[in-house]
């Protein structure tokens, strides 16, 4: 239920206070009044008021001064001046100081009614706008960027540092490391977050199409161009343009892009009019751009223009500490999406996940979990649900002591033989008692 809108009437004339109070009460508002500035300030301390109707001429502190005091503590207070002594000068002063409106006594009842309604409507919209902005900020907190490893923490810091600036950012990293997520996180933490982030996969489009995709085209610019079309640069106006796989752009388009970035203006394909735009560029690549510059396949001037602030995302195999957190996050995500009661990962399965090499990085991990969620059964994902088997090639053995290697090896043999102790002991070429001792020593547990 919406709270009753409240109105505070501040006027030194009792008859004015009484008649306005009565008038607004009949409309169902919560109304109270104050006879001077001091009483008004007390009322303002006691509760929040939606609208303050303020007389200008009052003994002691006048309405203009009171408005200044009110605005000092609540910049969003909606103040309507209502005065018998109207002059253009005071009206201008009041409005410049942030008053919502200025009316003279006696006021037309219809006008007053509309004025108060409009003021309330504007307050409502402003508060809704604020809530929506907060929601956007919440949504855009990039909750898929997860990790507690020092490398990931460093990336979080870099995002926060660069997001507040308008600097061009280049994100480097292997395929599947989450470069677009980082780009979106930078955008959503920047001043441009209320404008769009427009992503273009430069590697996925042939040269001519990419040009039209970036700059748009006029009707008849080429065969099949039946309608005028806006390009991604135009769509990103006010926001961020994310150029993925920027290393794959053809030389001709590289030149056009460089000019557009430098001048912030361009023409549509087949058009002559210059279109001005304001966007931030974030680009990403998994290519060795420095080598491409040396080999003259990537323009050096564009390289320097794009490579202002660089963020490198290490491959997942180099930040194994992030795997459990990421894997559990994906389990929760797909559990909600699929409505399945699988809510966790067995310690054996987690062990497999941590030891795996992850050539496809986070994207491969997410796919593996998604598949395991499809084939697995509640309550936990088990090793056999995972879409790969550890082989010597893709397995990374635990670093450190021989005992660590022995633990992993024994666990693997037990798993392969479904915890048949005799068979496992035979393969390990140790007796059963020794195997029991080692199981106890390493804290290995048979899956339930």
């Amino acid at each position, binding site marked *: 239920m919406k709270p009753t809108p409240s109105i505070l009437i501040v006027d030194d004339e009792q008859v004015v206070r009484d008649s*306005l109070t009565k008038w607004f009460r*009949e409309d169902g508002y919560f109304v109270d009044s104050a006879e001077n500035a001091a009483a008004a300030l007390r009322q303002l301390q006691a509760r929040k008021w939606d609208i303050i109707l303020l007389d200008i001429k009052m003994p002691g502190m006048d309405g203009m001064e009171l408005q200044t005091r009110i605005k000092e503590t609540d910049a969003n207070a909606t103040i309507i001046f209502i005065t018998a002594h109207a002059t253009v000068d005071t009206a201008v002063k009041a409005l410049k100081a942030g008053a919502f409106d200025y009316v003279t006594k*006696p006021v037309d009842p219809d006008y007053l009614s509309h004025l108060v309604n409009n003021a309330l409507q504007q307050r409502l919209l402003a508060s809704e706008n604020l809530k929506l902005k907060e929601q956007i900020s919440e949504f855009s907190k990039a909750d898929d960027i997860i990790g507690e490893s020092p490398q990931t923490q460093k990336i979080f810091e870099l995002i926060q540092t660069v997001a507040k600036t308008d600097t061009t950012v280049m994100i480097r990293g292997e395929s599947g490391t989450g470069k677009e997520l980082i780009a979106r996180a930078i955008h959503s933490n920047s001043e441009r977050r209320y404008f769009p982030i427009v992503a273009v996969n430069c590697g996925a489009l042939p040269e001519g199409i990419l040009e039209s995709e970036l700059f748009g085209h006029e009707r008849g610019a080429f065969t099949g161009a039946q309608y005028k079309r806006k390009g991604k640069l135009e769509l990103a106006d006010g926001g961020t343009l994310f150029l993925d796989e920027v290393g794959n752009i053809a030389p001709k388009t590289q030149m056009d892009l460089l000019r557009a970035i430098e001048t912030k203006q361009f023409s549509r394909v087949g058009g002559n009019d210059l279109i001005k735009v304001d966007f931030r560029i974030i680009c990403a690549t998994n290519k060795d751009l420095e080598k491409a510059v040396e080999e003259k396949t990537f323009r050096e001037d564009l390289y320097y223009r794009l490579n202002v602030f660089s963020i490198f995302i290490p491959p997942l195999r180099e930040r194994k500490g992030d795997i459990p957190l990421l894997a559990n996050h994906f389990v929760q995500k797909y559990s909600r999406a699929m409505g399945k009661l699988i809510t966790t990962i067995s310690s054996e399965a987690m062990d497999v996940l941590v030891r795996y090499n992850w050539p496809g990085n986070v994207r491969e991990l997410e796919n593996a979990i998604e598949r395991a969620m499809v084939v697995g059964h509640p309550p936990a994902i088990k090793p056999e649900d995972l879409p790969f088997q550890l082989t010597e090639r893709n397995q990374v053995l635990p670093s450190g002591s021989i005992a660590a290697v022995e633990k992993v090896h024994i666990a693997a043999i037990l798993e392969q033989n479904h915890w048949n102790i005799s068979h496992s002991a035979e393969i390990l070429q140790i007796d059963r008692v020794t195997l029991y001792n080692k199981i106890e020593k390493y804290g290995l547990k048979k899956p339930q």
Partner: protein
Amino acid sequence: MVSAPVQILNVSSLGNDTFTTLAQRIEEIFGVQTSVLQASLNLDRAFDSSRGQYNSTALLAQILNSYQSPNGKKIAIVDIDLYIPVLTYVFGEAQLDGTAAIVSLHRLSDQFYGLPRDDALMVQRLEKEIVHELGHTFGLYHCRQFECVMRSSTYVEEIDLKRITPCTNCIALLRNSC
């Protein structure tokens, strides 16, 4: 049902018989006995020469003093142009959840707006305003329903849009207040 009787104090140039049908309607809506009484008020005491209008709040005070009946509601009908300080005019005024109200004919007539006289329309508007102000005395606030008699009207055209009866919500509120 509400037990307090309603008195229509006719201070206007209209005959008391104008209010006969309305009295029955008021009894139906508010569930109270309603009578019409020829009355008088000292209008000069409420006159503001600078505005050429009559202070309706001052007249409400007179009604309360001159026509006392502890549990009854009194609504005066006058011909004069009413105002409350800060507003340029009012069609009427009432004590919210109180006992006194007043309604003016002055701005309800089409003649006031330079149009041909239409007495039937004026009486219809008057009846709606009487029910509206009485509604306030029974504790009803302004209603947002377009056709509800308790909708706030600042132009006569808005009065014409309303019905003479409260909406179901306002009727429910009336029942609950009993």
